[in-house]
């Protein structure tokens, strides 16, 4: 949490107050007993004492919700950075990645009066969070296949989003701000859901994964992509809406004029896409009624937001580095086919260092038990690279890589796998120039495991 100053916390009803007390006690116990940070445990206890605690804590507060299959933790972090440095009110966030109601309650308990809440939301909880928090802004990034044994299939999810967004109150009457949805216009699934909302700002943030959006969500027709990001159904009028802003290479372009280069501390086009969403969302949460609708001021506002966002250089360990055997190892997280595709784009965007890549796959509850999705990931793009396969499901990965035509060595233990890659890498340049990193890419618990052990 950012600046959790209890002194200025608002007065709560008795039950909510008891719930917050129980939550704090649980978190304290959890910490002193060494059972973790306690965020989720405390949130669960709080919700058990007062099931309406989330709505109570959110009442009267300016809330932004960020959801999507990929990029929600990073985008949440970016939005916090955009607001926290702007001289406006304090900002609270569930920045530990606990993106279900227990995590939201934990983030909001003890938030100072007037603090803005930026909440990352699991895709399956968007409807509940909208109902409980009456958000000022909802950011919809993308929607594609992920953990099909846990989360429902894409089409069921998009219909749930659509229903929840359709219930938002009509556009703001004076003095009573409504909800503005900032939605990725390049993803047909997101568009179908967001169209139901009364007020939407469409942003062209790109979408690397089209395979879940070929069937039109409206009529069952076929979505045809034109190769430059545009798309339309071949049967009904559903098509990419007119965008207020879009990403063009490294530049954010505003429809009403203005172009700002998106220069970040985080790598990859997918992070420029996340930052673009933030650039359009952040002004809607600030005190001053900055407008990104047009004119010279809009580009200036966007540039200001982006300069604050550019200070983010890692997000809960994603994109951070560790050192093994004198060699820097960059940690990357990819959880589903779209996420892996974005990571391969990143590896291609950067110079091919010729260094080994370590891939780690687990299949625990948080990852999904079914590893079939590995066959949707275009591992063929790693052909010619030196690959070390590891993780609890290294053998599933090894078989997939064999059929992808990628030579891989299997090293069961992740840390040993990293050390094998380090040992196999060409020695650092003797002139002291910064040596390029070896990349480690893991899915959720594989990534968390390596961070915890290294």
């Amino acid at each position, binding site marked *: 949490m950012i600046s959790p100053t209890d002194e200025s916390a608002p007065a709560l009803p008795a039950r909510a107050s008891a719930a917050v007390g129980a939550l704090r006690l649980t978190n304290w116990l959890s910490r002193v007993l060494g059972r973790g940070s306690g965020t989720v445990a405390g949130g669960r206890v709080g919700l058990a004492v007062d099931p309406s605690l989330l709505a109570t804590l959110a009442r009267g507060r300016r809330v932004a919700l960020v959801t999507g299959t990929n990029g929600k933790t990073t985008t949440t972090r970016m939005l916090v950075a955009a607001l926290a440095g702007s001289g406006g009110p304090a900002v609270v966030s569930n920045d530990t990645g606990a993106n279900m109601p227990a995590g939201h309650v934990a983030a909001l308990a003890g938030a100072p009066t007037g603090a803005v809440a930026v909440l990352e939301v699991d895709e399956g909880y968007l409807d509940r969070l909208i109902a409980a928090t009456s958000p000022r802004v909802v950011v919809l990034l993308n929607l594609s*296949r992920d953990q*099909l*044994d846990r989360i429902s*299939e*894409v*089409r*069921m999810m998009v219909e749930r989003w659509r229903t929840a967004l359709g219930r938002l109150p009509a556009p703001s009457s004076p003095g009573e701000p409504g909800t503005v949805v900032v939605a990725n216009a390049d993803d047909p699934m997101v568009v179908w859901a967001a169209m139901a909302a009364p007020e939407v700002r469409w942003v062209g943030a790109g979408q690397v994964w089209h*395979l879940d959006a*070929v*069937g039109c969500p409206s009529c*069952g027709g*076929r979505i045809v992509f034109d190769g430059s990001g545009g798309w339309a159904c071949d049967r009904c009028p559903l098509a990419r809406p007119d965008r207020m802003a879009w990403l063009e290479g490294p530049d954010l372009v505003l429809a009403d004029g203005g172009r700002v280069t998106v220069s970040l501390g985080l790598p990859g086009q997918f992070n420029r896409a996340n930052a673009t969403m933030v650039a359009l969302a952040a002004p809607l949460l600030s005190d001053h009624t900055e407008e990104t609708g047009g004119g010279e001021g809009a580009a200036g506002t966007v540039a200001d937001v982006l300069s604050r966002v550019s200070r983010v250089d890692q997000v809960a360990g994603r994109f951070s580095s560790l050192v093994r055997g004198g060699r820097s190892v960059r940690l990357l997280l990819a959880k589903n086919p779209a996420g892996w595709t974005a990571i391969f784009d990143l590896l291609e965007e950067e110079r091919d260092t010729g260094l080994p890549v370590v891939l780690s796959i687990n299949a*625990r509850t948080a990852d999904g*038990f*079914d*590893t*079939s*999705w*590995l*066959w*949707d990931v275009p591992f063929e793009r790693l052909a010619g690279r030196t690959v070390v396969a590891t993780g*609890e499901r290294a*053998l*599933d990965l*090894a*078989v*997939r890589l*064999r*059929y992808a035509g990628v030579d891989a060595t*299997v090293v*069961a*233990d992740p840390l040993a796998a990293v050390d094998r890659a380090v040992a196999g890498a060409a020695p650092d340049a003797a002139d002291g120039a910064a040596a390029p990193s070896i990349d480690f890419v893991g899915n959720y618990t594989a990534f968390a495991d390596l961070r915890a052990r290294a």
Partner: protein
Amino acid sequence: MTPASGRSSLTVAVVYPDLLGTYGDGGNGLILARRASWRGIPADLVQADSGTPLPVADIYCIGGGEDGPQVRAAEALVADGALRRAVDQGAVVLGVCAGYQILGRSFPDSADRAHPGLGLLDVTTRKGTGSRPVGELVATAGPDSPRLADGGLLPRLTGFENHGGVTTLGPSTRPLARVVQGVGNGGGDGTEGAWSGKVLGSYLHGPLLARNMALADLLLGWALSDTDEPAHLTPLDDADETALRSERLSAAGSARGGRWRRVHRR
């Protein structure tokens, strides 16, 4: 290798990957094409999107999908007619999950209305009433299972199931295997999958052929044979697949209900 037909190349078509293939099922086509080419049999892998006529192929792979796309795929395949003609001429068909249901006589949509399938397998699918089977499935070959080129039985099948349908077998089709762990067809007879001639359906993804290379080679053997008997194929070095199979089979055996807390072998 003695393919009865002396066929020197193969075409493997992945049917409507834009509609079906939610669970990595496209991998089955890739595995078949690779295992043919590793044996010196050139193999074309064709991604046959919906909206265009189904191409002529020796093996068709139909994957799993969500309810809406499943109905659209079935309607398109019935209207197209090419799959039935291909089967009449000896083509091999592998259907997984929704693809398996489409090969049958009928299957339910999300509102539980029955939709006609292709009728290439004498099976009927209805909606299950209990909770959706999601987890590891292990099944073993029985007397009704297809025979390998050497006359032997298929080794145990291993994969992951996730489906809401209950499939009942009619008299003119046979079960692929008997369930050891998991649910499979779910009709109370303990069977998993079905086959008839050179058409085979299963609820297993993983995808199916990644963990069951003997079944992959059976399908290739069928495709290379002009009779009902599969052609003999030269063995491949399947060390990776063998290790994966044994890990998955022992993981399934050590956990109830196909789920396990943590299986970490160093």
